[in-house]
């Protein structure tokens, strides 16, 4: 590993730890960082116990949703060989969100299977984008335009469901965009499915590197390009779907984090993937904490903070990084 990569990885780990501590002590209930750490290590601190019950599920969800969404974006970018692929923009997250809402409307008793339905919805969205933009190859521009169209169809449908559905549904649509009122059981779903997806993503990081070559070149090296594409896509959809079904739709994370990663640690997925996990986790956690701290007792959803900050940051990065993507 090069020095810059090591420094970047250490920096992002420290950032994540810092974000964790700040997030845990921010809110109406106040403890000092020291109290928090000793309370966590040795127990017995009453307020820290309350924080553990109320804030930790939310913190864990922010961490895993951020990690899952950024890695999902990274994987989609590798599969489509397109730096603009992001589950929150090209219809994967919207598909997942729509499908879980639809199932909650039609079969509310199957609530337990929400992540599965979200996965099917995300896979549907991905398949539509891929199939509709395929014309002997994937043109990056066409893919993004079709992705945006699919995204707006699915999010429109989801909103329509929210309009006329039961009170359960409308509360679902609203809550989907914020991380408040999260319970341990929701955190558990995300941690289990998310961890599986993240481990799989780390295992296929070498494949992601190979996909940066032309298909023909990879094929003549004896690689099964179609199989690699399919497996990586399904991991990406799993990550986006499970994050969406618990934390809602976030745009930009999957775009922004891998982009920062490529600038800092380069294009080798064996380093870029772990970096994206850490940076994505830190980013959403910071966004959520800022959203809670800005005007208490009101909360600004993390997804809104992400959209407002993420847009300009992306523009700055794109202007700076012409070298990476060329023209």
């Amino acid at each position, binding site marked *: 590993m090069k020095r810059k990569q090591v420094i970047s990885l250490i920096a992002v780990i420290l950032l994540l730890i810092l974000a964790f501590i700040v997030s845990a002590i921010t809110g109406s209930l106040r403890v000092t960082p020291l109290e928090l750490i000793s309370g966590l290590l040795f127990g017995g601190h009453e307020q820290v116990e309350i924080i553990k019950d109320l804030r930790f599920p939310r913190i864990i969800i922010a961490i895993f949703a951020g990690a899952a969404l950024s890695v999902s974006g990274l994987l989609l970018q590798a599969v489509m060989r397109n730096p603009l692929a992001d589950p929150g923009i090209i219809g994967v997250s919207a598909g997942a969100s729509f499908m879980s809402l639809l199932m909650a409307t039609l079969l509310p008793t199957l609530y337990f299977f929400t992540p599965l339905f979200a996965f099917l919805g995300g896979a549907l969205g991905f398949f539509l984008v891929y199939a509709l933009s395929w014309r002997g190859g994937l043109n990056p521009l066409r893919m993004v335009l079709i992705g945006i169209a699919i995204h707006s169809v699915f999010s429109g449908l989801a909103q329509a469901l929210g309009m006329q559905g039961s009170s359960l549904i409308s509360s679902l649509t609203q809550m989907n965009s914020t991380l408040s009122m999260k319970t341990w059981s929701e955190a558990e779903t995300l941690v289990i499915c998310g961890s599986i997806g993240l481990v799989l993503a780390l295992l296929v990081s070498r494949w992601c590197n190979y996909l940066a070559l032309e298909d023909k070149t990879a094929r003549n090296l004896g690689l099964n390009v179609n199989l690699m594409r399919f497996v990586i896509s399904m991991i990406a959809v799993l990550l986006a779907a499970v994050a969406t079904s618990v934390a809602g739709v976030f745009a930009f994370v999957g775009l922004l984090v891998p982009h920062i990663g490529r600038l800092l640690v380069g*294009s080798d997925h064996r380093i870029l993937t772990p970096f994206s996990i850490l940076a994505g986790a830190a980013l959403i956690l910071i966004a959520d904490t800022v959203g809670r701290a800005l005007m208490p007792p009101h909360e600004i959803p993390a997804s809104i903070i992400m959209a407002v900050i993420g847009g300009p940051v992306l523009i700055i990065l794109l202007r700076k990084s012409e070298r990476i993507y060329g023209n």
Partner: protein
Amino acid sequence: MEIKQISYAYDRTKQTLHSISGRIARGKITTIIGPNGSGKSTLLSIMSKNATPDSGQVILDGKSLQAYRAKELARKLAVVHQHNVAPSDLTVEKLVGYGRIPHRERFASGSEEDQQAIEWALACTNLLGKRSKTLDALSGGERQRVWIAMALAQKTPFLFLDEPTTYLDMYYQYEILELIRRINREHGMTVVMVLHDINQAIRYSDRIIAMKDGRVVIQGEPEQVITRETLLDIYGMETIVRTDPEAGLYIVPVGLGHVR
């Protein structure tokens, strides 16, 4: 390698290749020439299993290409494609190391043999000094040599190159051609390439396959294939074909023969 009555249609309306047959001689350099759209690149992609023929087959070492597993084929046949992309921050050595993929078991790391093959490929292509450079720090000619080195690291008996000299200036073009000839002469690699320049094809090939409209017009040694009549037929060009005591056989295009 034997090509048996290959037919292929890129889409249903237009046949691209019409019942092509031929034989690639072992240890020789064979060059496919022909005008744009004559099917030479298509033929090369069928011969490297990047496209599946509608009928006919390609036989490599007594076995149809379709019966080969991808890795097995990649140990027999390496291809340098015309258009290549790779991350610009990838180092020369890493990319050349990709050539060892077909020799590796899944999840295994590099062996002594892998490292030797990489060293050899870097030495052949004169890239030993550039091994830790990233791709964006190389010139066009060097980058083309890196792709050839990656193919060499596969240690295959067959090497295919699709228009290896495109986009390069004259010096780099001949550097690549000399390199290809050296690999062929010193290591007995069988080379098949697609070229546009007839004089380069004459100078660097043992055999030439001339194509037009998805058919093979004539194949054989350069002296048999490259005649005024053949060139008029396949390119529609008037040419002067001469033999010079120093330069050997060469052609000079002098005008359009007929309207295409």
